[in-house]
């Protein structure tokens, strides 16, 4: 069977992109290998670890559980784009302050997921924050500092409203 391809037109971090992709290539492989956006990481590649989390049409999804061909017409935001817009600058500062990462492999996915929690603009208990993060694995920190950083950022944002 020959490699079937499809042309896709999409927006990645605000930039219009047209590419021809193998239909079996998943989105995060496309972002990393075709576009050089290596901030999204590939961990388990079967939807368990959350390291490949990206935002598609405004919602966080698993980059390994969606084909690049399915992103035709979509607006994709990766950790690079999210950083550039400054949307989570406060969260990123809190991660640094609180030492909420050690090896950093899970961090882009953690930030993508936490960004969605923060966007809900609703008070959350630590337990609720942990539940929200249940689809993102960290194998270094034990999550305590990650939850601290998100809790602090959320509290500050709710205070400023």
């Amino acid at each position: 069977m020959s490699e079937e391809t499809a042309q896709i037109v999409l927006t990645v971090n605000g930039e219009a992109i047209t590419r021809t992709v193998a239909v079996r290539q998943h989105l995060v492989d496309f972002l990393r290998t075709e576009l050089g956006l290596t901030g999204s990481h590939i961990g388990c590649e079967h939807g368990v670890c959350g390291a490949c989390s990206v935002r598609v049409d405004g919602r966080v999804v698993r980059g390994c559980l969606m084909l690049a061909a399915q992103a035709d017409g979509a607006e994709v935001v990766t950790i690079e784009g999210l950083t550039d817009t400054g949307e989570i600058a406060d969260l990123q500062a809190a991660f640094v302050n609180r030492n909420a990462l050690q090896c950093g492999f899970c961090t882009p996915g953690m930030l993508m997921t936490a960004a969605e929690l923060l966007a809900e603009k609703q008070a959350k208990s630590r337990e609720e924050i942990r539940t929200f993060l249940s689809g993102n694995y960290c194998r270094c920190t034990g999550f305590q500092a990650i939850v601290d950083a998100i809790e602090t950022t959320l509290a500050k944002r709710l205070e400023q409203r």
Partner: protein
Amino acid sequence: MKAPKFSYVRADSVEQVLELLAEHGEDARILAGGQSLMPTLNMRLSQPRLLIDINRLRELSGIERRGEHVRIGALTRHADVAGSATVARHLPLIAEAMPHVAHVAVRNRGTFGGSIALADPAAEMPACALSLGATLVLRNTAGRREVAATDYFQGLYQTARRPDELLVEALIPVQQPGCVSVFGELAQRHGDFAIAGVAFHLKVDGRAVTDARLVYFGSEDRPTLAQRAGAAIDGCSLDDANAVAAAESALEQDLSPMDSPHASSRMRLHLQRVLTRRALATAAQRARAA
């Protein structure tokens, strides 16, 4: 790992999907949310020749009240079911179950119909569909047929859907006054596959239960309606400790829990009893509050 080679069609109409299914049958797989299919492709546990992507078919999405039913389109994302006021009001069992469905990123993409069509034994939506007496609507090129949830789930990943059929929607009876529902599950970590779970729907007349639909999942090869446990509580008050104990005891005959290295058959039966006790206590509270 990377997915094997396959052909891919992004369908523009339901008719096109049905024609492709008629032509390719079991060689084709429907790609909806992909949250279960994509892992099996990446791990090369399945090698379909053709993926039929239905994500552009808006007619397959949406939630609306239709008389005494709520219609949930097969392509409706879990996140949209979770956020639906119609579901919260008329299908509280599903609303209560939804936070247990995987994780936020999976709920954003995974679909209601995909969960029903796959019939994973640990999945929440098949259990809710069975408990609530849902009707599942299938289409092929010859027409449309309705299958009761009772007949739909036939075994481990086995359903009444034929290879040329597409699940298009579920019709779920709205919860009536005087009814209570309770959902509960136990997993090793929030969002993981359930090792035991319950989806109860009970009709309560005054103080007595007049119809108990006690559905168990996670432990069995398919969502399972516990007839004997239901009969044990039928006609009794939810506060009747003897009736609750009899229901728990009867589970031994209703269930044949699966055995796995992380959860033995005996342990799963025990957990289902624990969940039963908790859920019936919650049901009693809800019946009093109603």
